Structures are given as C-alpha cells and as structure tokens.
C-alpha cells in the first residue's frame, strides 16, 4: 500500500490501515520519545498518545509533508509537553519540601537513564551524556536527539522542526558546545584525580 492509499484508508476510518501505520512507525515514534523523555514508561505512554492524536486528527492532515515527518512532529511536541509538565511538578514538589511538607517526592531525584540501544561498554559514558542532553534547551535537545539517536538527516530534521537546514546546523553546533561545557563541569566534580 502506498502512502497516499494508506492516508486515504486512514481518513475512511479503516482499522487495518491504522494497525498498519502503528506497526510500521511504532519503533521510530517510541525511540524518539525515549530519547527526549529518558524514561521508558513515559515514552510508551507518549508513543500511544501520538497514535491516538493521529487517529483523531488524520482528517485534518493535508499531506503537505510525509506521514513520518508528521509523526515525528507530533512525537517531539508531545514529549516536550510532558517534559514541561514534569518540570512543573518537580518545582511544585521542591516548594512543598521547602514548606516542610512530610510528603517526600521521588521526582526530585534525577533518575539515571541509559538508552537500551547503547553498547554495554559505553553505558557509563552514555549515562553522563544523557544527563547532559536532559539539560539542553528544547530546540537543541530535539535537533540533537533526532540526529544522533534517531539517525535523521539535517534535511528531515528541518522539515520536522519547520525550520531551515542552516538553523538545524546551528542548533547542532550549539548543542555540542553546551554538552561539552556540561560534561566538563560534571567530570571536574566527579573525576578530579
């Protein structure tokens, strides 16, 4: 089935077409969400929400971009929304702890994440890198994740982020500089000798 036929079938409410779409794209959507959210259960929930959103708004999809581009765009938007929500909850939990509330929040602790696709011998280095990625500004985080973790080309990233290729290049350059700075301060604190 061609992409146009698939979109047409989806618009007609075909369940087999929807299943086909999910099974074709589920891993790339999940991998993108996981790279950004750095939490397996959050990534699973968000990936599900992406497909629910697609099911709900396929009627409004004009086909100006490829279906995969549209899916990546929804996946990054939903992941960033969850990151913002989690940050708000952490701030609230922090204020509660300052106010002397007895309720201790686990969300205050930064969970250490290692992507399941990392080679065993690289896990320690990758853990430090993922902590640094989590501290990047949103647009840099999206560009870096899509390029380095999802393996997309700058051209495709520019279509997903609705920006120019040169802007993506600039985002990648700044993200690498920021990662170097964060990693330097991390290693200066943890590995002085």
């Amino acid at each position, binding site marked *: 089935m061609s992409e146009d036929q698939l979109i047409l079938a989806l618009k007609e409410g075909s369940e087999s077409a929807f*299943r086909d779409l*999910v*099974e074709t794209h*589920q*891993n*790339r959507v*999940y*991998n993108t969400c*996981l790279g950004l959210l750095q939490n397996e259960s959050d*990534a*699973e929930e968000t*990936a*599900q929400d992406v*497909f*629910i959103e697609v*099911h709900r708004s396929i009627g409004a999809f004009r086909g100006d971009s490829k279906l995969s581009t549209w899916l990546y765009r929804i996946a990054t938007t939903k992941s960033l929304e969850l990151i913002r929500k989690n940050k708000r909850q952490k701030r609230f939990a922090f204020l509660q702890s300052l106010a002397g509330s007895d309720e201790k929040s686990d969300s205050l602790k930064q969970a250490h994440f290692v*992507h*399941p*696709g*990392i*080679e065993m011998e*690289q896990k320690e*280095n*990758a853990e*430090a*890198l993922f902590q*640094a990625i989590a501290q990047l500004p949103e647009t840099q985080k999206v560009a870096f994740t899509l390029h*380095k*973790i*999802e*393996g997309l080309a700058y051209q495709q990233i520019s279509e997903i982020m609705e920006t120019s290729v040169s802007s993506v290049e600039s985002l990648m350059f700044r993200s*690498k500089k920021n*990662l*170097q700075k964060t*990693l*330097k301060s991390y*290693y*200066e604190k943890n*590995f*002085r*000798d």
Partner: protein
Amino acid sequence: MKNENNIETKINQALNSIEGIESAEVKPYFYTRLQAKMENQMAPSYGKFSILANLKLSLAMLAVFFVFNLTSIVFLSGSQNTDSTATSALDEFSEEYFSNPNVYDYLNDY
C-alpha cells in the same frame, strides 16, 4: 595538565558513546495496549469530576436548585404575612373584649 587531558578524553568518550546506538523497540503487544487506551478514552467517564463535563445535567441541576430557592423565599414571605394578619385579628379581639374595662363598670354598681 594531566587532569585536563583526562577530562578532555572523558568528554570525548561520552560524546562518542552514542555512535552506533541501536533504535529502541516497543515492548510486545504495543498495539493491543494502544487499543485498550483508545477504548478507555472513548468510554463514558464516571470519574470524580465527570459531572462537570456533563453541561446539560449541570444546568438542569442548577435550574432545580433555583426553583427550590425561589419556592422557599415565596413560602417564607407568605408565612410572614399570615403571621401579621393573625396578630392583627388577635389585637382586634383583645381590644373588643378586654381593652375597655369601663364598658362593664356598670356591673360593679350593684
């Protein structure tokens, strides 16, 4: 100097650690879980605040509440009028039979 070199090496190792990373895969039965979530979202909600979502029911309940309030106000003000009527009738009775003792003074003449 040695430390600086070590840190530089560590940074480069960290940055290169995701080279050749493999794509993560969803756990089995992802589509089944997705279907369950979609069905759950489409089912009517009986949650704590679901009544707020049902605007028609909320408006009907609000209308009933106002009708009850209005009825109560009308009933209470009507009851106050009845009281005042009853009081004035009692006054007239009292005036008629007890407030002018001179009327019966002639009885004491004997």
